[in-house]
């Protein structure tokens, strides 16, 4: 352990960890909001909606996140005049916001597929029963289908959050000083390989904590599905 090095770059790297966490939290949350309409479009009756949502999901799941990030960050610069005209340039000027935008679009595509699978896994009898009770389509979705789909989707969604934490390291390539970015900076100044090992430990801790939180969440959210005797 090189204490001198830790003293010099430790705080900076913890700041980077904070950026990583905010990057993931914001992207995953915005992605979730976008994922629901995309998932519903994927299973809608309209051919147009199905086609558009399918293309969106296929593009973002079939291409590398790094290439998508370059496309947004560098590609947007080309349309500066147009973006300024519609007042959206602030979003593309900042590397951090570009990363958020790209990660949001990317995770929304993955989350939409998870949600679609979960919605389709809810037994058809549930929506038939809702229809028999005279519930409207929207009410059925909100009160009957989505709560059950959410339970099914919880575990894959947790995996998606972990993939996002790992993927967020890509932001460092477009000059965002997240955990990976500050680590690369520290390495380029000190040439001490140890900083990469610290970063590795920090990432592993974050992923492990999230995994445990998610296990708890799953136990809590499925508590109505266990037999009474199993409860302690």
């Amino acid at each position: 352990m090189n204490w001198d090095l830790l003293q010099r770059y430790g705080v900076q790297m913890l700041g980077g960890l904070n950026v990583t966490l905010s990057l993931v939290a914001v992207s995953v949350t915005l992605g979730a909001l976008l994922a629901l309409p995309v998932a519903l479009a994927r299973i809608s009756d309209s051919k147009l909606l199905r086609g558009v949502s399918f293309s969106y999901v296929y593009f973002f799941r079939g291409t590398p996140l790094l290439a998508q990030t370059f496309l947004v960050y560098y590609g947007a610069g080309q349309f500066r005049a147009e973006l300024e005209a519609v007042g959206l340039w602030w979003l593309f000027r900042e590397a951090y916001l570009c990363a958020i935008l790209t990660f949001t679009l990317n995770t929304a595509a993955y989350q939409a597929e998870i949600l679609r699978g979960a919605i389709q896994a809810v037994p058809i009898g549930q929506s038939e029963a809702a229809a028999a009770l005279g519930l409207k389509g929207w009410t059925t979705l909100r009160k009957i289908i989505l709560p059950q789909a959410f339970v099914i989707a919880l575990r894959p969604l947790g995996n998606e959050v972990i993939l996002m934490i790992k993927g967020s390291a890509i932001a460092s390539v477009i000059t965002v000083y997240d955990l990976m970015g500050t680590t690369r900076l520290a390495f380029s100044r000190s040439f001490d390989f140890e900083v990469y090992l610290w970063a590795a430990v920090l990432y592993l801790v974050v992923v492990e904590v999230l995994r445990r939180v998610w296990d708890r969440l799953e136990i809590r959210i499925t508590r109505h599905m266990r037999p009474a005797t199993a409860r302690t």
Partner: protein
Amino acid sequence: MTELFGLLQFGSEGWADELLAGTWLTIRLALATVPFGLMLGLAVALAKNSHSSVLRFVGNVFTTVFRGLPELLTLFIVYYGGQILFQKIVALFVDTYVEVSSFVAGMVALGVVFAAYASEVFLAALRAISKGQIEAARALGLSRGLTLRLVIIPQLWRYALPGIGNLWLVLLKDTSLVSVIALDDLLRQTKVAVGATKEPFFFYLAACLIYLVLSIVSSVFLVAMEKRANRGQRRVGA
């Protein structure tokens, strides 16, 4: 618009040959990674399935670490760490400077990540093979090595193929990370083209579409491979 597509010509005018060369390197890197990743993954799966608690522990730590680290960080650790380690080993014998090839570093880094995920796929597949198969092999007097080769692996492959196919698609996309350690893959060649033409949107979009084509072609192959692995099998819904 026609000017833009002119940039995709072959020869000195356009960038098609550079992009193609990059694509070829991406494919070669992915193909070189798979055998290494599969063998390591199978070894880790066998370790996690073994009776020895030490082996199980080592296997689990390997999986936890390489599934938890960002691929980019793994790549840097292998690239820079491998360089330092290799230099130290060489320095024991001769006093010269050696450089780790970024292709090999990329292959090893992507390979260990692939292996970490593949070991989980193999483990699930191992558990799907019924015990009777192994007992029958023993009753026929097959050695442990022969049982593994003739009885377990052919069935393992059938159960594992869908999972491994997904990992291949993930791997194809992850190869783009090596552009950061100066390997001339598709994404890096695209970057060079962007630097010269100042057309980032067009070229990055073109690169994305090439990755998409690679995924689509792979999917076709994977479906064919699954069909072949399942020949002679009857399945629900088939």
